[in-house]
């Protein structure tokens, strides 16, 4: 018994194939984002950047960057709650994530 099939255990995902290395989703609420840039500083993977005209800048995820780690440091530092990672990274094959449920803030029991 194993949660990964033999085929999966033998498959190491291709680092340059986004369909095999699925780095998680980061969503930005553009109405709430005031372009303050703090999240770009807090991002451990340095994957966020500012764009847009001066005075109306917003933040987005850079194109073609790997290494987003769903740490949500951007969410922690954002004063407006405008940015959030909503999904964990996942891979095809050997590193496929197991037993992960939905994202949730700390729940009181």
């Amino acid at each position, binding site marked *: 018994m194993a949660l990964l099939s033999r085929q999966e255990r033998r498959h190491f995902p291709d680092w340059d194939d986004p369909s095999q290395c699925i780095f998680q989703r980061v969503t930005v609420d553009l109405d709430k984002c005031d372009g303050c840039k703090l999240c770009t*500083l*807090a991002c*451990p993977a340095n994957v966020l950047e500012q764009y847009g005209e001066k005075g109306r800048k917003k933040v987005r995820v850079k194109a073609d960057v790997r290494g987003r780690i769903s740490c949500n*440091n951007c969410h922690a*530092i954002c004063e407006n709650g405008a940015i959030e990672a909503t999904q964990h990274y996942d891979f095809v094959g*050997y590193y496929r994530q197991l037993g992960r449920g*939905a994202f949730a803030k700390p729940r009181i029991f």
Partner: protein
Amino acid sequence: MAERAARVLSVEDPEEVEREAGRSSKIPVVPEGAEWNAVERVMLQRRSIRRYKKAQVPAHLIRRLLEVARFAPSQGNCQPWKFVVVRDPDMLRGMEEFCVEQCRKLSNGLDYATLPAGSLKYRIARTKAKLFGRLQPNMLHPVPVSAVTAIAEGRFMVFHRAPTLILILMDKRGVGVPPVDIGICGTSIVLAAQSLGLGTCWVGFSKFLNDSREWCERLGVEEPYEVTEAITVGYPVGDTTRLIPRETHETVWFEGGKKQILY
């Protein structure tokens, strides 16, 4: 035999021992739905901080962190740790440079994603990566590999320009699984730091320092010790205490003769 077994049982019944001693400790009551207490809040607010203010952390606060770490649990109470604290900017810069250079070498030889697809270099790197991946699947996980490349390309730092670095050396002769004890000990450090308004970040790439005879000599890393982890300490840029969402994990729960899956 039976008499002996009964005696052992009675001695090991903690409530009876308490009664015999004429003492009794109360069971603390935490009602359902109670707010997070101060310690839990600190644990939930801890983030891995990679941007620090320039201000140095007062030495007595670092001493405080190490004092807490000294009381961390370890297997057989073996305490297989040794701390090396570096607060000298020149040394920190030198260590950063050395680790960046190691990342450059690693990234160039292995990270085929940075090379033109199909080129000879790409094919060689890819073959090497797939082979080493089998031998070292944890180190060649896609996440650290992308970090190594980010460091090599100057998009990311190893020690994050933190004013203080605590290296945790491990005595390889520790009881059982000493790396676990290093993790537990470091957790005491990062949580205590969070409670004092400090930011921290674990730096596993500090292990590269073991490959430098010069740095081992300067830092005093000698057999049977090796650099296992490092923790950067400083004042974080921005307020990072907003609680964050994270994925739940499957939990298997056995109770009342039933098995449940919880998240």
